[in-house]
């Protein structure tokens, strides 16, 4: 490490690494966007990164660096050299790629290397630059791995089988088709009953939330507030319950439901789902109830309310945010649940959304339908999540002991 701590070593080193990272990013992004052949080159990154790094340690301003690099990379792309290589792509694609490369390399690198000088660096300066570069890489990396699968999912659902086989990289969509783009969605809704599945999933999830709250609120209150023998043991064993894997329970439940004729019935599903979520909900709620000041409740008791009235009139209104978090979390679990729905439901008229998607997974059904189904299942939960992100995050953090 000591030998790296010179401005004329650190600068070019970070320059090369960052140039390569951006080159890969731009190549992948441009390939996915246009379907044309872009590929990164290590030699190109070496050749272009070293001078860039050296120059930016020497001096550098964001605007100048980005502008110069954009021009350089435009020329390089046209000549077929540089960190990103490409065949014959259109002028627009070349301009866009050069812009991304110029700004993507120039701007962050100036920030990373701002405090460096040509000579010896202190450990602090050196590590600062490295950490900044690592963070930059982290943002790019995490965003890429999260976005790419969802991007592929949405774009695949808008294309057709022939287009997909021809060039698996070409995710550009033909806007001239207009509403025709959404053909697979329309087909899912009309021919595959996805409207019904959505409705089934929705009301099963809502029922699950209601039943869970009905059971968990009194239970959580008792564990959090009331003194009784076995209270400590109880609050611990709640956690133990969701250490039990679902598949272990699914087997006897399957047998029992087969014998009782509850398989293939929504009632059976509604009986099972809440029980899988009650322990989580109870655990989350009791944590919140404990945090509420007991004095308010005691005041209520002194004023002549009974315990149940105290819960209804004081505790519940105070814990509305927690109830929202728990409800969202439980809704998410029920909406996303796959295993039980898969094992217990065989009748297409009673499918939930996840079970419906599983039934699309066959070689006869084109895969844009499968992806359209996935989008249909994902969008509502994402919308809920983004709209109520604060509650959701809180719920996830509190309940994330459950997988």
């Amino acid at each position, binding site marked *: 490490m000591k030998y790296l701590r010179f401005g004329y070593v650190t600068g070019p080193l970070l320059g090369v690494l960052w140039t390569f990272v951006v080159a890969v990013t731009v190549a992948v992004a441009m390939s996915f966007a246009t379907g044309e052949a872009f590929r990164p080159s290590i030699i190109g990154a070496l050749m272009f990164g070293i001078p860039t790094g050296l120059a930016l340690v020497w001096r550098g301003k964001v605007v100048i660096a980005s502008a110069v690099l954009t021009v350089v990379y435009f020329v390089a792309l046209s000549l077929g050299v540089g960190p990103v290589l490409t065949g014959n792509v259109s002028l627009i694609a070349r301009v866009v790629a050069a812009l991304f490369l110029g700004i993507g390399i120039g701007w962050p690198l100036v920030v990373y290397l701002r405090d460096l000088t040509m000579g010896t660096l202190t450990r602090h300066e050196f*590590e600062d630059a490295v950490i900044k570069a690592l963070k930059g890489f982290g943002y790019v990396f995490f965003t890429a791995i999260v976005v790419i699968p969802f991007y592929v999912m949405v774009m695949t659902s808008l294309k057709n089988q022939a287009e997909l086989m021809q060039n698996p990289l070409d995710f550009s969509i033909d806007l001239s088709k207009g509403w025709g783009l959404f053909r697979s969605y329309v087909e899912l809704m009309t021919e595959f009953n996805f409207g019904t599945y959505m409705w089934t999933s929705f009301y099963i999830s809502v029922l699950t939330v209601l039943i869970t709250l009905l059971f968990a609120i009194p239970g959580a209150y*008792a564990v959090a507030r009331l003194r009784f023998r076995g209270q400590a043991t109880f609050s611990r064993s709640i956690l133990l319950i969701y250490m039990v894997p679902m*598949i272990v329970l699914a087997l006897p439940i399957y047998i029992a439901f*087969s014998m009782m004729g509850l398989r293939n019935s929504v009632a059976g599903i509604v009986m099972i789902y809440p029980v899988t979520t009650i322990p989580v909900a109870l655990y989350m709620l009791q944590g919140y109830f404990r945090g509420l000041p007991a004095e308010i409740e005691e005041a209520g008791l002194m004023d002549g309310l009974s315990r149940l009235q105290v819960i209804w009139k004081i505790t519940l209104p105070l814990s509305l945010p927690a109830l929202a978090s728990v409800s969202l979390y439980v809704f998410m679990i029920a909406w996303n649940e796959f295993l039980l729905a898969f094992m217990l439901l065989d009748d297409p008229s009673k499918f939930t959304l996840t079970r419906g998607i599983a039934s699309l997974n066959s070689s006869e059904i084109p895969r844009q339908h499968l992806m359209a189904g996935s989008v249909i299942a994902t969008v509502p939960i994402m919308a809920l999540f983004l709209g109520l992100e604060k509650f959701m995050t809180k719920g*996830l953090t509190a309940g994330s002991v459950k997988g």
Partner: protein
Amino acid sequence: MSDIGPPRGTGPLARTEARLAWGLLTPTILAVSLVVILPLLAVFWISVKPVSLADLRAPETVVREDLRGRPAAAGDEATLRYRLRNSSPTSEITGVTLTDTWPEGLRLAGDLDPRCEIAEGELLCDLGDWEGGYRETLNIPVVTEQAWFDAGADVEDTPAEVDGKASFVLTNGEFTLENFVSVFDGGEFWSVLGVTLFYTIFGTLGAMIMGLFASMLLNHSFKGQGILRGLYLFPYVAPVIAVAFAWILLFDPFSGSANALLVQMGVTDQAINFFGERPLALIMVTLFEIWRYFPLSFLFILARMQSIPTDMYEAADMDGASPFQQFWYLSLPQLLGILSVLFLLRFIWTFNKFDDIFLLTGGNAGTRVLTVNVYEQAFAVSNIGAGAAVAVVIFACLLLFSVFFFKFMSKEEGL
């Protein structure tokens, strides 16, 4: 001498409180024991039973009754026929008896089966024991009388009742250790256990390291932090079935974008079958697990990170600690508690994970973990007993983990 100390024992108020508490908890306890405890016990019971998927329906006696010979006028001969069958091909039914109302207007003509008798308008037959797959036809010769045609009745109007004691495999006294023998037999179990441990350990560690990295990215406030945080939670929030299929399509060997990209970039010459090759498939499902669950670790760690007081870092800065030293000597020790809790919880949950692997590979190509093995044994091989035996093994492992878990949890989080 009267006792004037403070009251000892439980007073009436405390008792009322305890009673109320149990009252509030009863619904939960009932529901949980019905759906969790009872099935758990059932799994233990099934695991020592020789039961397959086909045995799930209890053996039943099936009877069909008809009048043969097409009698047209009074005095015609006909045959009253009972076709009897044991619905189960394997299980025995003992002490079978048949009772039926003797149809009015029919007269017995000839010999009655020695096992049967007619008394007070009732036909009674004692048919003894039926082994699995038993079939019999009981023919009773009759002569029709005018009353039969007057009534215009049919023999099926009064359904014949057949009773017998079926020995149902789930409730009888037959036990076997065959299931456990077949689970541990043939070395397959150890490879499954090895795969499970690889998946669990690397999946958990990977998700935690990624989570740690991601939470360091978002630990300072900047514009767009909220959006980025929301975005990074997507893999966890989306339905598993949707993201699993997206991965399958992305890494498809024939028309997957990932392969096209790799070929185009010159990383590989020919398409890679990511989910179909050993040991690549196992690495891929582990990567999927890491991808899907890093948001959870990230949420946990970020929450803890934001509660570390900043003046510690300021002090470290003054003392000349470099950024890496600050991370190593300050942040990590502060996060150790949450990291160990997280590791234990995620370890158990990854161990229990079923959906992900089942959807991605179906347990093929060397990715069969214990939970998938339960499903494979019970439904693919149709041997429910063996499936339950694997489930018992899983449960035993979990008990072992729980001991560790409680030791740590009670120390770290004060649960």
